């Protein structure tokens, strides 16, 4: 598992300053999340797809991420159309799907895909350390920044810890079944994982303090705003304004 798999690449988006990408991603996500009009949702999706293409991310890896999101959305398609009151669209045995419900499910699907792609193209194209540094420059409170950074960093460690524990169980011939013994063993596994992760976090913090850490993260590679960053900021600002304008006025459709 490699959480930073998109962070290095050849595209312009990879080279942009995180301090302009973070606000752009945030604005795009917010507008998309609150938008109601189809034209806005479609435009947001097109924009996100465009950004993803522009970032030249490996197609198969992006598809894998989208698959995960859309599997989850499939559950929404199972329930939302049938549980929303409105004009009947189709009947399935005793259940009736409504136009309103289907519309809602479609809107959620469009929004989710647009936001995931947008975030992949804008944020996943920077190493997490640069994002962290960017967040600090944007005056995000240190506590939040640390929470974000360590969540990311220790996801990996906890996952490895989990694999090690599973391995330790497997080499002693543990085969999961659906019985009480299995559930108890798995409960121990989860408990052990929590305790170990907690312990590790304490030790890492101690090690950081030993190297003079006082709550501020510095970064070795400094970045400076360049012309392309300003152009990107201007362009993304315009796009967001257009989207917001479409949403809150009645232009087009």
């Amino acid at each position, binding site marked *: 598992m490699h959480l930073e798999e998109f962070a290095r690449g050849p595209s312009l988006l990879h080279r942009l300053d995180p301090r302009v990408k973070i606000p752009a991603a945030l604005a795009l996500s917010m507008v998309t999340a609150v938008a109601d009009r189809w034209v806005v949702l479609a435009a947001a999706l097109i924009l996100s797809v465009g950004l993803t293409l522009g970032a030249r991310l490996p197609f198969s890896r992006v598809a894998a991420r989208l698959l995960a999101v859309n599997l989850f959305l499939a559950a929404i398609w199972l329930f939302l159309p049938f549980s929303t009151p409105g004009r009947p669209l189709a009947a399935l045995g005793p259940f009736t799907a409504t136009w309103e419900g289907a519309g809602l499910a479609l809107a959620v699907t469009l929004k989710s895909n647009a936001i995931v792609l947008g975030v992949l193209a804008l944020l996943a194209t920077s190493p997490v350390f640069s994002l962290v540094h960017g967040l600090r420059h944007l005056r995000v409170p240190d506590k939040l920044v640390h929470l974000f950074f360590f969540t990311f960093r220790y996801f990996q460690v906890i996952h490895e810890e989990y694999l090690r524990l599973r391995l330790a169980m497997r080499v002693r011939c543990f085969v999961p079944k659906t019985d009480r013994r299995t559930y108890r063993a798995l409960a121990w596994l989860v408990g052990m994982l929590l305790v170990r992760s907690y312990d590790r976090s304490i030790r890492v913090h101690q090690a950081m303090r030993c190297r*003079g850490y006082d709550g501020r993260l510095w970064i*070795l590679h400094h970045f400076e705003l360049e012309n392309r960053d300003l152009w990107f900021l201007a362009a993304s600002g315009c796009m967001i304004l257009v989207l917001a304008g479409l949403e809150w006025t009645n232009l087009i459709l």
Partner: protein
Amino acid sequence: MDESYPLIRITDLGFSYPDGRRVLDGLSLVFEPGLKAGLTGANGTGKTTLFHLIMGLLRPTSGRLEIFGRPRTREEDFREVRAGIGFVFQDADDQLFCPTVADDVAFGPLNLGLGRDEAHARVHEALDLLGLGAYEHRITYQLSGGEKKLVSLATVLSMKPRLLLLDEPTAGLDEPASERLVQVLNDLGLPLFIISHDRDFLKKTVTHLFRLEAGRIR
């Protein structure tokens, strides 16, 4: 550097963990300037605990702790201690947390307030010293156990400490890596305080042995 006072002077130190287990009891120790010493003792006698007390990660229950000639009791006192003592943890996974080796080795120098160029220079210097020049851009969590161990040493060497505290530095190192470590430590010429169960390694690196037994130095 002219140092006439002992680097560390511990007087009648006692320590218990919150669960009441008494680990250190009436421990006294004087660490003279320039000393290279090993710390031995059975498993669970409190060697790691003693190092954590010296670094200010734990606070003594009783007794007196003097480092670099001054009593140390509060967190602020230990800031200066940590800038002067390089402590390498028993488990390298605790020490390394940055994405790349260069970031991790630069972490300490940047915390000390060094500029980027200076920090860069320190990174190269420390990595070259350990023969890790080619590792600068490697991802830390993809290194092997032995490589991690050497990189952790680099992360404290880059801070140019006055004394090195190493907690079982040879655990997990193969013969050549361990030889390399011996050589590096001897070339550095820094005062050393090393916890190790590896008698051979201690023989090659230190000139004095402290033995921890029943909560004190014998």
